[in-house]
């Protein structure tokens, strides 16, 4: 609020730099507080897990398990974070994962082996994203409605393809990727993919013009347009990106579950949105954090893991999950405002 009154007609910019805490440090500090809060929540969870189940929780296999279980929804969440940062929403992610996973596991597709499955999953994901993007960017549809329509149609199409049947994968190279033998230095390949998507996502959002445009469109679409950004094309790309992430996630799910089913990806949209929000991404757009989203996913997966290890039942799990969402957001807001 300090008013810096510049001397009149001093056009040369020779004025001394301003004293006081540079605002960038304050800002960086706030971002750190957010990340630290999430890490703190995760640490508390690890503590709880370690105390209640010291043997089965604090175990390499369990770490591998938690990270593997987080991979599928994690990849979806990275894509979702981009869409939310741009001020949009993608309700169709779960349905796209389902459609891509069943399309990629039909008998016909499986004949083309590993790359046939991978290719189909990615193409179906991107294709659905393209439809979303075109409807939103050029059809001027509200993202909520367009992706809701995609949710319904993709689920319907997935059901039509499968007839409700479970499509078991018989391509051994795909199945092998989910086995212990495929671990690289003890890291499951699924987790490596998740890590790669996270790193790439972070770089794209924070270090590229694409990321800047995304933030600009989400922060103020009109200002972005008047600044010369092609807002429509950017929106199209963003839903494509989300579809791509869904396609990758569908492939991971195929590897993980060894099958494709039309019920796959159930409520992924809500899990992904919740993780992004916990991670500090504004639902109104304009600000988002890939790392926060990923931490959100890890928090949820860890909670589920701890509950399962302690043999707590679904009802208790759900109650606690809701409570932790509220608590995490409240703690974050408090630390952010007192900082």
């Amino acid at each position: 609020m300090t008013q810096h009154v510049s001397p009149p007609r001093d056009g040369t910019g020779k004025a001394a730099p301003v004293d006081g805490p540079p605002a960038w440090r304050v800002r960086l500090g706030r971002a750190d507080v957010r990340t630290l809060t999430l890490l703190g929540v995760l640490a508390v969870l690890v503590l709880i897990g370690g105390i209640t189940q010291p043997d089965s929780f604090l175990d390499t296999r369990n770490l591998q398990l938690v990270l593997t279980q987080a991979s599928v929804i994690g990849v979806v969440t990275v894509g979702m974070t981009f869409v939310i940062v741009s001020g949009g929403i993608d309700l169709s992610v779960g349905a796209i994962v389902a459609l891509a996973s069943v399309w990629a596991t039909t008998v016909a597709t499986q004949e083309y082996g590993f790359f046939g499955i991978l290719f189909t999953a990615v193409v179906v994901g991107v294709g659905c994203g393209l439809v979303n993007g075109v409807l939103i960017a050029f059809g001027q549809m509200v993202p909520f409605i367009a992706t809701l329509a995609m949710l319904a149609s993709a689920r319907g199409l997935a059901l039509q393809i499968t007839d409700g049947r479970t499509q078991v994968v018989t391509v051994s190279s795909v199945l092998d990727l989910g086995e212990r033998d495929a671990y690289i230095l003890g890291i499951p390949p699924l987790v490596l993919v998740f890590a790669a998507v996270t790193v790439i996502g972070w770089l794209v959002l924070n270090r590229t013009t694409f990321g800047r445009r995304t933030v600009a469109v989400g922060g103020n679409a009109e200002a972005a347009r008047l600044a010369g950004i092609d807002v429509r094309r950017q929106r199209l790309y963003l839903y494509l990106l989300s579809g791509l992430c869904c396609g990758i996630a569908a492939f991971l799910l195929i590897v993980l579950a060894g099958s494709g089913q039309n019920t796959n990806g159930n409520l992924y949209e809500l899990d992904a949105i919740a993780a992004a929000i916990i991670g500090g991404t504004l639902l109104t757009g304009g600000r988002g954090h890939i790392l926060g989203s990923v931490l959100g996913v890890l928090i949820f997966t860890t909670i589920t893991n701890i509950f399962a290890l302690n043999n707590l039942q679904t009802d208790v799990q759900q109650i606690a999950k809701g409570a932790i969402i509220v608590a995490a957001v409240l703690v974050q807001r408090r630390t952010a405002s007192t900082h």
Partner: protein
Amino acid sequence: MAPEPPLLSMSGITKSFPGVRALDGVDLDVQAGEVHCLLGQNGAGKSTLIKVLAGAHQPETGTIRWRGEEVTLRSPIAAMRLGIATIYQELDLVEHLSVAENVHLGHEPTAAGFVVRGRAAKASTAALLKRLGHPEVDPGRLVGDLSAAQQQIVSMARALSHDVRLIVMDEPSAALDPDEVDNLFRIVADLTADGVAVVYISHRLEEIRRIGDRVTVLKDGRAVARGLPAESTPTREVVALMTGRNVEYVFPERPSAPPAGEPVLSVRGLARQGEFAPLDLEVRPGEIVGLAGLVGSGRSEILETVYGARKANAGQVLVDGRPLRPGSVRAAVRAGLGLAPEERKAQALLMLESVTRNVSVSAMSRFSRGGWIDRGAELGAARKATRELSLRPDNPSVPVRTLSGGNQQKAVLARWLLRGCRVLLLDEPTRGVDVGARAELYAVIRRLADEGLAVLLVSSEVPEVLGLADRVLVLREGRVVHEAPARELDEHRVLDLVMEGSPAS
């Protein structure tokens, strides 16, 4: 002074926000029936003070006396019960409700305690609107369908629907045309004649001279002058108090020789149905061309159409003789056009982002390779551009929302400077900019022109157009009625033109 205690007496009010002391022991006395003007730059504490008065903020220390009795304003309702009404600059009306519903929001006339008597509400609203000189506003219309000026009237009617003793008006004239401002002043005079006190906040010193009784000047959360006589205090003194130094409200000198050379921007027969008639104009490098006209004369629409943000029905925009693709902002930007729009916060700035990112957004390709941003180069370029415009603070990493209005405008100009734009379209460049900062902004604009930029300027403040522009086009109802070098015009003549439409002599 007065034998009886003042209507309102605030003393020693302090209020802090995290990191900021917004009010630091402010005193304010308001007499019944006076117009008390509150002056100060952005961030001086005016908004905080009136929010304390409205019950929206609770002060940490200090006392508030109302007709001599100490009171605590715990909530806006408490303030309203005493008879204090506030009309905020950003109108707090519900667009999807009717005028009558807005006026009576929260205190609807009811039958049996809960059945809203719509007809009674409409009747009393109509009476209020008539008293405010706007009987043409239909109480049944949706507020969202009204003009900004009419919405302000509705806001005022809402204040008057209570038994009001003191009205706070926060820059009420900002969105009004001269005749509407006249009407506003008539209403203020009526109110004070009835013994109602008005706390009036404005940037326009001439208004304060016209209707104000006394002036309190705020600076950095303190009242640096209290109860100055509004009519007789010299402008210089007021400005000096506000800024803490002596500033002349001056315009930069024009270059001695009129700009020569081929026009960089040519507009030929450009028109939009219902907004403005076919328009021709040319701007040469180094030239500032001003468009003067009333609200609704099509000024902003012309700028936005030239820029491609609106699609023209007819005509062409040419840059260096090459026509632009109509309706494409990107084509305009690529050709070297840049717009500083009227609503900076809504149309230009990314309020969550740093100055750097706001400045760099239109020129990202300059310091990126294959989409990869060189952040060092970006920061350096932003620093250079903002320094060139003496943007304060001299730290482009701060969030743009922490900047004052004038510096936010400089951030927008820096964006186009960095982009290397050659034609600058300025829409109300000093709206929301402090008096003290305006002169500096004028100097910046003139300097940019001197460096070879072509500038097309739109302003509702006639002296600004006359003082800054080289050539002026006078608009009336979407049509150019007169064109002349600025030095051949004066304010009266321009006002005659925009009112009458004929170049009366």
